């Protein structure tokens, strides 16, 4: 086929383009992914019975705000990475901000604690399972994120999927936060971050395989 014929074919009856397609696609993915994570969390883990007490603790809200802020920051970046020619020169620092803030809280908590109480703040009671639980809950948002990216045009599939994985991990952590009994910032700063990094690493691996266009 000659290029001129291809151009005729493409232009013929092309019609208008859906507006805000990128935003709509990611909005759908975030809602579907979060609902999916909840649908796993409620039957498998269930909401924490201590939740009425926990919501009175500022540290609970630090944990929830960290996960929500990280999800939002990663979302901003992955939406940019899904569009050719859009850079993440400045917006990438948004992803570092929630982590830096959390580590700052963690450092204060460790500094304020008695020396023999510090290990307990870091290790809590659930460190063995926490990252894997978060990774499990991140699978529905990860799948939704891949669905969103496959309909868009990431020119760096590995990076786009990695950032998408971090977003999925943060959504998983957000949902898991309502089950998890741990609220000490040092614990969150280690085990939640590791849990979130697992879907990020999955993205690094799967991105080039699933996102070619």
């Amino acid at each position, binding site marked *: *086929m000659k290029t001129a014929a291809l151009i005729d074919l*493409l232009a*013929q*009856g092309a019609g*208008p*383009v859906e507006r805000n397609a990128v935003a709509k696609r990611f909005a759908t993915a975030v809602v579907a992914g979060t609902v999916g994570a909840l649908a796993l969390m409620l039957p498998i883990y269930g909401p924490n019975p201590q939740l009425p007490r926990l919501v009175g603790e500022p540290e609970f809200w630090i944990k929830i705000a960290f996960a929500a802020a990280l999800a939002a920051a990663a979302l901003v970046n992955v939406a940019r990475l899904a569009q*050719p*020619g859009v850079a993440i020169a400045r917006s990438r620092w948004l992803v570092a901000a929630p982590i830096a803030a959390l580590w700052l809280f963690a450092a204060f908590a460790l500094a304020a604690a008695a020396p023999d109480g510090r290990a307990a703040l870091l290790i809590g009671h659930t460190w063995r399972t926490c990252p894997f639980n978060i990774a499990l809950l991140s699978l529905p948002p990860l799948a939704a994120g891949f669905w969103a990216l496959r309909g868009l*045009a990431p020119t760096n599939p590995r990076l786009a999927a990695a950032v998408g994985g971090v977003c999925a991990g943060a959504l998983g952590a957000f949902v898991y936060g309502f089950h998890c009994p741990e609220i000490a910032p040092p614990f969150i700063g280690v085990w939640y971050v590791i849990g979130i990094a697992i879907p990020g690493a999955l993205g690094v691996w799967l991105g080039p395989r699933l996102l070619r266009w």
Partner: protein
Amino acid sequence: MNDPDGNRVTERPAPTNNSKAALDARESHLHALMVRAQAGDEASYRTLLVDAAGRLRAFFRARLSRASGDVEDLVQETLLAVHNQRHTYDAARPLTAWLYAIAQYKLVDLLRRRARHERNTEPLEDDADALAESDADALDARRDLTALLAALPDKQRLPIEHVKIAGRSVAETARLTGLSESAVKIGVHRGLKALAARVRAAP
């Protein structure tokens, strides 16, 4: 390379005739065409694709050996991607950055595919006369899109043949093929995506 906002656009500068004013004029011309095309103006879209094809040809010729039969294949593959991904263009951003980012992606993808298949890659050459801004004379593509199109399943091939090649309306196509109107629209959309996937799979 950085655009005026400091954003990284492509790894190598797009072919230009150097002057800032010419760059701006090119950008605003293409941008205006794309904005009208996004709103459904078919004539603007056609003009944009013809213009883009010339620029893409120059872009790929500057990066592949001049006689390479890959150039026209890449032009066609990129035009198909431009069409399939046109919903990812945000009118608030430069159109040329979007276009050349797709071209760069398609070029790297082709070279990577080649390397993976252990074929000899085309040499990347810098030759000065490849800085021509646009190149209108098309060589024949080596890969035949007509054959790839003919191999699509009927529910995609028929809508494309009726709507996109014969120029029939969606309603008429629905009547002729017995498909519903939404199936015709989905068939065109999915068919062009499937065509792009088959282009990638073809050597």
